[in-house]
Structures are given as structure tokens and as C-alpha cells.
């Protein structure tokens, strides 16, 4: 394949050309309630070409029929020539790499019969249903894929990789009269079949949580000291800061560049944030990004000060910085754009108890149902919360939605514990129509001295 792609590159005639080809085998099994919803095996294949000519823009072509490879290279070159760009697009230097990377499959799922995958999921789904007869519905899904990946560019990079991925998730829906609550378990790993065995406990906990929330009051809206558990702190740093550190947002926007000037203070000393695409064994980890740049650990905030950002080769060249290996595409259907990999808040010190000891009235927000950022403003939904009263955990509360302004909220992080962990969840990140991209987030427990929690508006506030 590499020879065929290299030959196609040779006939390109553009200043720069890259070709990606992917062949993906996947199986997916879904249970809803006691019923198997579907069990399917799919095969997806296709290619992607990107070309750059002198003074031209990006010419891009994607296709599912590999017979069209040579024609699509020619088409991409033609499209690049049709788009005039001044000043011209430049790419940051990256040394050419030739690599063969077979990632640790830890049990190649292609060798496991789909009936066995069904049995595994059926057992986990059974754990959800067995918790209580209040669990009226479940959604449990298993998905694996192995993707064979080839990448070449006209600068001499040639990569061949085998990339595994496996995700497992379970949602329990509990109901009593008109009240419906849910609990979620989600696991996502860049590994294979062996790594998703013995996961029943997490499924049980998810169902127990859904049932428990039926009796929980809605949190009273207002500003509180909020402690984020490591899972939610990870989602928070991804949503509230990570997206802003993606250089395609700032590189050609002078006002945005000014807002994100390196050296600007974003938080108190003690706040350290980074993105590490090379961290071993994580879902956002790969040896190279989709431009053939090696991945790396990129510090973004050091002791509260902005020190770095995430780059593609184009954004790095424009800003006079180095490519960081963050140009990623979810599949051959898409161009690489600047994305996160494994984003983290680094460890502080002390324990969870140290964080809550002096909190008179606060919220402990746990787990994540999701998050969205609209630069500067973000919102994320915790799976559940616990009130903190006089330094101790108190009642469970539901509908904990945290909303905030990025600059204010980062600056209000006043305590970071020393209990860091990576959250190996499924799902993924969405941007520019590309979702879900496998990413990981990691953090210790984090305290925000004051944050807005959505919920019931206190009745006294009614106009």
C-alpha cells in the first residue's frame, strides 16, 4: 500500500501532498432493556488527499473507492490551484518519519466471535437491570474497532499503523411515577478485547446512582464553592480551557491572539495544565498525528501562566511556533484540524478532605453527562452532586449544571488535591463537524471558590 501511495504522490505535481488511507473493521452490540437492539459487523474503507500548490489554498478530496486514488490526487491539486491565498499557506518544519507502529491490541477483537461480545454485554446489561425494579430501561453498548492506517506525504514521511479501540457504556434509566433519572458508566480504551473484562462493578454503580437520584432534590441554584471530582475536573479543563488553546482559533485573528498572549496569567500559582498525546496507554494517544508529526506532552499553563498552545503545522508556521502533533481527523472523510489528545490538570497536593474541610455550604459535583463550550462561556452537566455542609458531605442532589466564564472560573481555582487520575471514558470530543474524536481527560479533585450552579431559582428572587 505504501508503495502505491508513494507512486501516487510522485504524480501529484503540487508543492505538498499527503495521502491517508484507512480500512476499519468494527463490531457494535447494543442492548436496550432486556432486548438485543443490534449486533453488527461493519467494514469501512477510504482515502483522503490534501494538496498545496504555490500561492494556492488547500485542495482536499475524500473517497470510498480506492480505484479513484490517482484521479482524486489530481482533483485535489486542481482544487488547490483554484483557490488563491495571500499570504501563502506555510507549514512548520517536521522531520520526515518512516514508521511501522502496531499498537498493543491486548486481544485482537477481530478474532473474537460476535456472539461472545454479545454475551459479555448481556452480562453487564444484566447488572444494570438487576439493581432494582425501578430500573425501567437500559442502554448498554459495546463497540470495538481495529483500523489499519497508512499515511504518506511528499516530504518523505511514510507511516503504517494498526490502531485498536474499544468502548463500553451503560445507561440505566430509573423511573418512579413522573420522575425519570439516569446513571451512566462509560469506558473507552485504545486497546482490545481483554481490557473490557471484569467491568461489572461500574455498571452496578451506575444503576444504583439512577435509583438513588429518584429521591434526590434538585440542587438550589446559586453561587457556591464547588469541588469537582477528577472526572468532572477533566471535562472542565477540556471544555473551559482546552478548546481555547487550540491555535486554529487564534492564529489568524489578531484580537484572539491578544487575548491568548503567552505569559498571560490564567490562574493562581499551582495551576498546571497540559495536553499529552504521547502518554502511554490512553485513548487520545497515538505515535503521530494525522499530518505525520510525532505527538508530545505540551505544557499549556505553568503555575497559572499561559505558556503554550496546540498546533497543526499550518498554525505553528503562522505563529512562529513548533508543531505539537495535534492535527487530527476522525476518519478519511475529514481533514486534520487542531484537536486535543489527553488533556490534564496536573497534581497538586493534599486530599479530598483537605478541600472540603473549611467549606461551610458548597457543592461536590461528580461525574459528567456532558459539556459544551462557547468560548469564554461553558456549561457542563454533572452526573450528580452532594451538598457540602460544615466541612462534611451531606445529601445527594440532582440536576447539577455548572455554568461559567472561563477567565473568572480558572482564576477561582483555589485548591488542587494530590489525587490525580486519568478518566478512561468513551464518547469523545466534537469540533468542526468531526465527532466523536477519542480523547482522554485527567485531573485530581479541584476546588473552585465560587461557581454558578443552575437549578431551581430561589423563590425570593422572583420579580
Amino acid at each position: 500500500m505504501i508503495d502505491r501511495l508513494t507512486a501516487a504522490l510522485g504524480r501529484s505535481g503540487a508543492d505538498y501532498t499527503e495521502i491517508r488511507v484507512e480500512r476499519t473493521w468494527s463490531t457494535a452490540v447494543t442492548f436496550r432493556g432486556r432486548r438485543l437492539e443490534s449486533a453488527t459487523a461493519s467494514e469501512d474503507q477510504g482515502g483522503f488527499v490534501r494538496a498545496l500548490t504555490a500561492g494556492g489554498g488547500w485542495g482536499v478530496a475524500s473517497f470510498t473507492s480506492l480505484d479513484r486514488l490517482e484521479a482524486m490526487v489530481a482533483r485535489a491539486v486542481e482544487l488547490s490551484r483554484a483557490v488563491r491565498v495571500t499570504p501563502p499557506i506555510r507549514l512548520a518544519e517536521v522531520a520526515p518519519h518512516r514508521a511501522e507502529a502496531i499498537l498493543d491490541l491486548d486481544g485482537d477483537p477481530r478474532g473474537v466471535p460476535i456472539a461472545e461480545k454479545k454475551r459479555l454485554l448481556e452480562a453487564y446489561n444484566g447488572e444494570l437491570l438487576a439493581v432494582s425494579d425501578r430500573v425501567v430501561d437500559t442502554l448498554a453498548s459495546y463497540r470495538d474497532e481495529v483500523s489499519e492506517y497508512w499515511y504518506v506525504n511528499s516530504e518523505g514521511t511514510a507511516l503504517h499503523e494498526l490502531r485498536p479501540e474499544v468502548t463500553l457504556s451503560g445507561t440505566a434509566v430509573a423511573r418512579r411515577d413522573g420522575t425519570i433519572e439516569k446513571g451512566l458508566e462509560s469506558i473507552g480504551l485504545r486497546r482490545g478485547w481483554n481490557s473490557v473484562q471484569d467491568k461489572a462493578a461500574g455498571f452496578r454503580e451506575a444503576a444504583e446512582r439512577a435509583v438513588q437520584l429518584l429521591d434526590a432534590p434538585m440542587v438550589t441554584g446559586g453561587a457556591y464553592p464547588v469541588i469537582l471530582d477528577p472526572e468532572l475536573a477533566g471535562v472542565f479543563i477540556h471544555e473551559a480551557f482546552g478548546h481555547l488553546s487550540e491555535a486554529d482559533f487564534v492564529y489568524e485573528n489578531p484580537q484572539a491572539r491578544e487575548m491568548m498572549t503567552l505569559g498571560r496569567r490564567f490562574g493562581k500559582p499551582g495551576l498546571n495544565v497540559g495536553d499529552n498525546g504521547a502518554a502511554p496507554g490512553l485513548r487520545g494517544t497515538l505515535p503521530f498525528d494525522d499530518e505525520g508529526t510525532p505527538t508530545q506532552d505540551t505544557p499549556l499553563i505553568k503555575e497559572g501562566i499561559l505558556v503554550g498552545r496546540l498546533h497543526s503545522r499550518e498554525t505553528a508556521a503562522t505563529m512562529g511556533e513548533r508543531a505539537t502533533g495535534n492535527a487530527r481527523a476522525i476518519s478519511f472523510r475529514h481533514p486534520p484540524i487542531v484537536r486535543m489528545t489527553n488533556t490534564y490538570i496536573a497534581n497538586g497536593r493534599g486530599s479530598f478532605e483537605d478541600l472540603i474541610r473549611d467549606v461551610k455550604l458548597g457543592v461536590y459535583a461528580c461525574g459528567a453527562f456532558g459539556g459544551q463550550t462557547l468560548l469564554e462561556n461553558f456549561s457542563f452537566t454533572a452526573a450528580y452532586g452532594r451538598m457540602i455542609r460544615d466541612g462534611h458531605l451531606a445529601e445527594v442532589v440532582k440536576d447539577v449544571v455548572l455554568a461559567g466564564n472561563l477567565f473568572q472560573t480558572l482564576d477561582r481555582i483555589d485548591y488542587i488535591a494530590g489525587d490525580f487520575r486519568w478518566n478512561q471514558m468513551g464518547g469523545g470530543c466534537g469540533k468542526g463537524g468531526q465527532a466523536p474524536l477519542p480523547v482522554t481527560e485527567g485531573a485530581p479533585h479541584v476546588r473552585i471558590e465560587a461557581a454558578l450552579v443552575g437549578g431551581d431559582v430561589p423563590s425570593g428572587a422572583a420579580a
Partner: protein
Amino acid sequence: MIERLLERARRRADGGADALWRRVERTSVAFEWGRLKAAGVAEEAGVNVRVRHRGRVGVAGTTAVDASPDDVLTRALASAELGEELALAFAAPAPVPPVTTFFHPVADASLDRLIAMGRSLLAQLEREGCRVNITIEREAAETQVANSGGAAAAYRSTAIGVSAELWRIAGDDVLAIGDTYEGADLPSDDALAALVRSVNRRLEHALRVVAPPEGALPVIFTPLGLSALLLPVTQALSGKAVLQGISPLAARVGEQVFDSRFSLTDDALRPGRAASRPVDDECVPSRITPLVDRGVVRGFIYDLETAARARTHSTGHGQRTIFGKPVPGYTNIVLGDVRSLGDVGAQHAAPLQLGGGLLAEIRDGLLVDELIGVGQGNVISGAFSHPVALAYRVERGAISGRVKDAAVAGNAYDLWKRVGDFGNDGRWAGARYTPSILLDGVSVARR
């Protein structure tokens, strides 16, 4: 491809099969931060097949369409072996309603034409201190859907999306205002002018930042800002949610659940809309489906499988991709009286005016154009709580400025029981046609 596949399927699957084949070609141009940066093409083809064998149903898909049809059939049969028994009946042969889905101006639109459209929009939107992103994407598709019982349909379709997004960053204040034209035919000059006006109007009002109000207040949700209020309702009106026992509307057909001026219809035959089609992806003829009529729940949407399980008929809402099995999905959702819409296929039915004529009724309140985090959390319960992405304060009948750092919360079912008023600014936002809606007693919090 599809005939060959079904012919093999007749021999190998004792309960028959149905299949969807689709080929799409796309062209796109992208202006990034005010500069034309990229042009692209995409070609994609694939087939999805479903078989019924020994009473069990299985599905498989592939983009390797040149491969032997037996490969994908073998996978579909393996999938069926695992399934439980289901009395799935494939669609019967039936006449197909007329609907125009293919527009030559879109199919034939040249790259230069798309670039010129983008440049014109850029020229009208650019200004000091702002940066503009524009994406234009057109596609032409061929679809064949058929089953072993003799039902078959084939149609060509086109679609185009024109998105403009204006960014203004002043200090730490980030403002993004965007709008999108979507349709099956090229936008008229009027439609593009409306897109420009839509962005400009909202920008003008946004330049001044004012303090948000607080309390239980009258709030106008614009057609773009209405998602949080409609999402719980459309989720609950899916036959799938009913089957799962999680739809709060399940047992309420024939009951007055909403304001008597609230009607909701799914219209798969609306002219000029990209979601319109003569048959669904399971070869069931398209139709107009009343969901809520003057506040009374009328019915739910079904595909073949959910209909079989619920012992009812498909409403023609089967949607399938190349991978995975068909699921029930909406086409064009219309809020209001669908009969009074006439031939509305265009983006805007009424002159664009922020607030849709509802501002005058408000002494102190909010106009919400975009919320953050819609779709997160426990949507189907109707409860929502979202910070605003773009919202304006309304004081003494006029917009006084943009508010930041505010959040709105409430329960969609409670709010839809009594609507304050409906605006005169009905328009398409994606595949949804709505006017602005004024709701009373929405919780507004600030920080």
C-alpha cells in the same frame, strides 16, 4: 448493486431482505477568518442491508461496494443469528407521492459559483474588529431503496448549506453570531440578503452589554434559540421512547397537553427542503404526520421495527446510514399550522425582525437566541438549565443590549402549557420551522 444483493438475499434469507444504496458527491469551499482557504470534494458510496432469517433480523453495511454482495449478506445473516425473533414486515409496494428533491442549479453549481457566493457574503459581513468564517457545501446524491417483496424506489436529491459566522473579540469579551441557509435549491438573492441581515441585526444589538435581569420572567425564544424547549417534546414523540417506557407523552394521545395554539407536524413532503424525500430509507412512502394538533397529542413517529414491536404501522420515518440499523427520525418539523404555511420552502417566511413582534409585550425580560449545552442531561424529563450564549435584555418593549453571565431554567412541559404569544417571524432553522415564542415565568439567574 441493490437488485443483485436482493436477488442473493431471496435465496439465502427465508424471510426476505431490504436494502439501501446511496452515493453522494460533495463540493465545499471554506473561508477561514476572512480568507478563502480551502476547497474540497468528497465521493462516497455504500450499501446497508437487512435480512430476516428464521424469524430473526440482522443488519450489515459496507463502503467496499465493489466487493461481492455475498460478504455483506454473510455478515447480515451472522447478525440475525444473534437477534431475537421479530415479526418485521418489509414495506409493501405502494405508490410514491410526488416531491421534488433534485435541483439542477445545486447539482451543477461550479466551484467558482460557490466561491463567488462566499466572497459576496464576506464583503457584506466584514467590518473593523470582526472576523468572518464562511462555509458553503453542496451535495448531490442518488438513493435506491428496495426489498425482496417488490417494493422499490429510486430518487436523486440535492442539498446546499451556506453558513456564516462572525466573531468579535474585544478584550475578554468573545462574541460569535452566525446563521445558516439550508435547502435543496440554491439560495435566492433574497435568502442570502436575509442571512446577512440576520447576522447584522443581532450584532448591532449585541454591541452594548447590559446587566441581566433576574427572577421568573417573560422570555422570548427565537427560532434559533428554541432547541432546549422543543428537544424534550420531539424526543417524547418518538415511537422508540414510547416503546422504552420513557416518554412522558406515551399514554396521552388524544389529551390536551400543550397550549391550544401549539401544533407540531412532521412534513416529509415540504418543497425545497433537504430532508424531504418521496420514501423513507425503508421504502415506506412519505407523508405529512400530525404529532400535536392544537395542543392535543396525535401520534408518534415509527420506523418498521418500532412499529412492529408496538403493533402499529410505520409512519415513514425510517432513517438509516450505511452502518447500523434503521432508526426512527424526523424529517421537517413544523411548529404552527402546517396548512397555513403554503409553499414555504424558503428560509424566511416573514421579514426578519428580532423578536418577531413580541417585544412590545415585555416590561422586563429576555430574548434568547442561543443557549449552551442543549441536549445534555436528562432532556426527556422536560427540565432544562442552560447558560446563555447569545441573549438580549428586553426593557419596556425594546432591546436594551446583550446580556452575559446569565442562565435560564424551567420545565418545557410546564412552559408549553401556556404560551405567552407566537411571533410573526417564522423561519427554517435547519429542518425545523418555527416562529419566536414568548413564554412567561422562565427562571433567569445571573452571577
